[in-house]
Each structure stands twice: as C-alpha cells, then as structure tokens.
C-alpha cells in the first residue's frame, strides 16, 4: 500500500505545480528513471490552440534539429526512445500558425538519458526467476534426501518398450529423429536425454538404431550419449559411431533425406522428439505410410496438431521434458518435476487471486496487470 500512497502524492504535487503557471503553458523533458537508458519523457500542456495552429516538437542533438511530433493535441505525454546513452538532448516545442510563422516557442532540457543499475520494470521477472529457482532446487534437495516423488502415467511413454520390442521381433531398424534444431535448444537436449534411454533399450534388445541428425553438435552429443548407454547396457561391441550420422543443416534437405531413409529401410518404430517446424507432418505422414509405430513429442504449439493427428502417441509440450524423468526415474529429475508442478500451482493461484482482486479493487487490479504486461 506504501507504493499506492506515494503515487497519489506525486500526482497531486504535479497537478499543483501545473496550475501555478497556467497562463503560458508548460513543456518538460526528463530522463526516464530505473530503465535501461536511452529514453526521455516529454510532457506538455498548452492553454489554447486556434483551429489553424499546429504543434510541432523538435529534438536537438549535437547541433542538428529533427521534428519528432506534429499534431494538434493541447496536452500530452510522449517517451522518446532509442537515444544515445552518452549524448545530451534538448527539445523545442513550437506552435505554428497556418502561414508557417512561429506563434510560441518553449525549450526544455538538456537531458542525459542514462541507464540505471536496475530496471524496475524487470523486477517482476527477477522475482519470478527467484521463486522458480527456489522451487526447483528445494525439491531436488528433498529428492536427494530420499523423499519419494511419484509421476503420473504418461501413455506415450508406456508404449516405448512395446514399440522397440515389436521392431526387434520384425528385425527392422528403429529410427530416432531428434528434431532440426541444435544442441543449444533445450527441446533437443530433452530429445537427446530420451535417446539415451531408448539406446539402452535397443542395446538390451540388440535392435539396430538409426539416428539421422541435422546439426553437427547434435551429432557429437548424440554419439557420446548413445555410446554411454551401450556401455552401461554391457554391449560396447554393438555400438557403431555411424548409427548417428549428419545429413544437412537445411530444414527440407534434412526432411527429404529422412523420408528417403524411411522409404528405403522401412523402420518399424519411429521416435520424433525435439524441435520441429513445418516438416513435422511430412515426417509423420511418410512414417505412417510405411506402417511404423510413431511416438512424437515437441513443445512447438504449431506442430502438435499434426503429430496428434498423424502419430500413435504424442508428448504434448511439457510432457517432453517430463519424459526423461519418467523413463530414467532418477531422483533429481523427479524432484525438479515436482518443483515445476509447484510453480504451475503458483501461476494458477496468481491467476485466481489476480482476477478476484481486479474485480473487487480495480486500481489494485490495474496495477497488477500493468506489472505483468509492460515489462521491458
């Protein structure tokens, strides 16, 4: 409530100062505080404008003058952005008569649009980051202290064993497509983690694994992950580095390559886990045309409809990240997942409380909405 009181006092003070010099009109320019620099707040209030007069505001920066505003608003506010942080700016307001002569001129500034140590508008992001960081680490520590965390059934992951088993019986290869983005994309990282689990199963079942990749870093990471899974499964001999091979970085060059592999080698099980764009449907439809079991997963909302329509099982958004915890059962992964659930609960409470507050106390609600909406 302190903040609210403070703003009320500020507005009334500004109002009084304005009315003092009613006659001549005011024009002020100040640096925007607590921001990332480069912006100046302009405010003007004029007693009156004849029909024919227009108002023009010029920005003066090391000698040259440029018009930035031209309209007929008697009073108004405007923030001039992306200015040079080290420069000094001054502004001139001119009321122009129809014949181009200057009826009135008010100058403001000079002003230095400096960056401050912390941008207030980003405080909410810092708060949210700290809360999520605490929730995730708290539950990871809890799981390390031995507290058991269960995970609900995810249908798509129940069928991983079934799919690999079927492929082995039919003596056909298993195709794993880790998406078309690089290892720095966290969906690809989730895909590679799941590849590790799938590889330990293909090692145990002695099935042939084929992993065409579209990025060279994904190739090297996937090779190391699969090698480790084969070592852990006690089958170092079955591992061959060329199971994971690079095609091309281009989205559709890669797709036509993978389609060719599907048509020629006819894998019985296809995994598509990672980041996908428009090529998702081409892969899923070609995979379906050769009658393979398809398990897909991505957090790209635009591609989920196609996977859901064309594949047997689909991991939707967050389920892709939960899959690694589900398959490996490692305590720290289950703990982090519990932390994510708590963060979701936190978001839901904010939504409910925010709505109630906005309905009951509109000004408080408006402040909340403002804090969440204009960040930057």
């Amino acid at each position, binding site marked *: 409530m302190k903040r609210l009181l403070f703003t009320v006092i500020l507005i009334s003070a500004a109002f009084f100062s304005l009315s003092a010099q009613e006659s001549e009109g005011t024009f002020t320019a100040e640096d925007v505080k607590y921001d990332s620099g480069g912006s100046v707040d302009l405010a003007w209030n004029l007693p009156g404008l004849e029909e024919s007069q227009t108002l023009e505001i010029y920005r003066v920066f090391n000698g040259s003058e440029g018009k930035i505003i031209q309209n007929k608003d008697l009073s108004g506010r405007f923030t001039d952005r992306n200015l040079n942080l080290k420069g000094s700016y001054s502004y001139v307001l001119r009321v122009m008569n129809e014949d181009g002569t200057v009826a009135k001129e008010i100058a403001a500034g000079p002003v230095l649009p400096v960056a401050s140590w912390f941008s207030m508008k980003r405080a909410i992001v810092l708060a949210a980051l700290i809360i999520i960081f605490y929730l995730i680490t708290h539950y990871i520590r809890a799981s390390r202290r031995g507290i058991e965390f269960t995970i609900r059934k995810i249908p798509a992951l129940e069928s991983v064993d079934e799919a690999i088993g079927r492929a082995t019986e039919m003596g056909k290869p298993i195709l794993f497509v880790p998406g078309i983005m690089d*290892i720095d994309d966290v969906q690809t990282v989730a895909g590679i983690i799941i590849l590790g689990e799938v590889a330990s199963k293909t090692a145990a079942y002695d099935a042939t694994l084929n992993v065409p990749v579209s990025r060279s870093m994904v190739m090297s990471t996937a090779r190391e992950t699969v090698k480790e899974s084969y070592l852990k499964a006690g089958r170092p001999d079955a591992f061959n580095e060329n199971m994971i091979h690079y095609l091309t970085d*281009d989205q559709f*060059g890669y797709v036509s390559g993978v389609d060719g592999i599907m048509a020629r080698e006819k894998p019985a099980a296809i995994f598509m886990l990672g980041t996908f764009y428009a090529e998702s449907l081409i892969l899923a439809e070609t995979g379906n045309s050769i009658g393979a079991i398809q398990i897909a997963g991505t957090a790209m909302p635009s591609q989920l409809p196609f996977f859901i329509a064309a594949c047997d099982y689909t991991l939707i958004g967050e389920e892709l990240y939960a899959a690694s915890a589900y398959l490996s059962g490692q305590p720290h992964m289950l703990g982090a997942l519990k932390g994510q*659930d708590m963060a979701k609960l936190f978001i839901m409470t904010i939504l409910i409380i925010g709505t109630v507050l906005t309905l009951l106390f509109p000004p408080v609600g408006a402040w909340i*909405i403002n804090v969440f909406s204009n960040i930057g």
Partner: protein
Amino acid sequence: MTMTFAGAIGIFLAGALTLAIFSFLYKDNPVYKFAEHLFVGTSAGYWFVYNYFNVFKPNVEVAWKEAVGFWDYFHVVIPVLLGILMLMRLIPSVSWISRWAMAFSVGMTVGLNTITELETNILKQIGATLSPFASLHFNNGGLGASVNAIIILLAVLAALVYFFFSKEHTGGYGHIAKVGIWVLMITFGASFGYTVMARISLLIGRVQFLQTDWWVAIKHIIGLG
C-alpha cells in the same frame, strides 16, 4: 518479361526438379533419389556460403583487418579458437576438448532462453489473461467479451491442471484434467484447420509456377530449338 535462353533453361530445370519431388508422392524412385541427394548437397553448400558471407566475413575477416588495440583482436581470436576446438571433434584422440566449445554455446542459449521464455511465455501470458477483467461489464455489448474472458481463464486453469505430473488423474481432480485435455484437443483441432489454407497455398504457388513460368520457358526453348 524478357526471357533469355539461359533463363529459360534455368526455369525449365526448376520445373523438372519440381516434378521430380512430386514423383515421391507416387513412389520412391531414382528421379526422386537424384533430386533428394542434389538437394541435400546444394542446401548444405548454400548454408555454408550464406554463413560465410553473413557471419564469418564481417565478424572475423573484416574485424581482423580493422582490429586496433588488444580487445579488438581478443574478440576475434577467442571465438575462432573455440571454433577450432569444435573441429577437434574430428580427431578421436583429442575429441573431448570440443566439449569446451559446446559448453560455451549451451551456456549462451540457456542464458538467453531462460529469460525470454519466462518473460514472454509466462508473465506476459498471465498479464494477457487478467487484463480483460479490468474492463469487465455485462451491459450494452460488453457481455460477449466478459463471458469470453471468463471462459479463457477457466480453460487455461483446466489445461494447466492436465500438465500436472505428480498426481494421478483420478477423481474430481481427474475430471478437471479431462476438461483440460478437451481444451487442448479443441486448440489442436482449431490450429490444424486454420493452417490447412496456408499449406494449400504452398501447392497453389508451385502449380501457378508450372502453369505460367515453366510453360512459357518450354515454349521459348521449343520456339528457338
């Protein structure tokens, strides 16, 4: 449109490759295999040339020539060193050192994505869900918008419940999760239907190319041939 002979040959080739790709719809065949491998090679080459001119030349070659003072050289040498470390992946005995370069790029994107996702996909979405409630009124025409705002809020909450992992979807809680997956199914059905037009217009573009440019090029070649 003035058509040179070389231009006609080029467009003819483009049309032929277009039909080669379409042939995959019938069945995998040598012509498609040729076009596929041609595309794998050309696209890999294109991306290399594109990156050389847009990344390597300005930030390394030009930066090195114009470098003055320690820091300018520093900002060229270090990334190139990291890049060479990445190439060490090709030499098995030393390949482990490429992890340093990989670690750098994973750190870069984790740092960037964590903030942008938090700001754009969580905080701003909360703001957008709450903001219609600020101007909620049930009279004169505001009814539709208000009802929609409430439906959106409830649908978002139900769908979030579906994404809960630490509790089995059973009992009353399970029903909310079921409503949640229904909301998601409506969402995915809607975006599937919405994008069908975009996919069809891709085909329209290719058919118009074949019917106009390619046809003109063939007549041009035959006319002269």
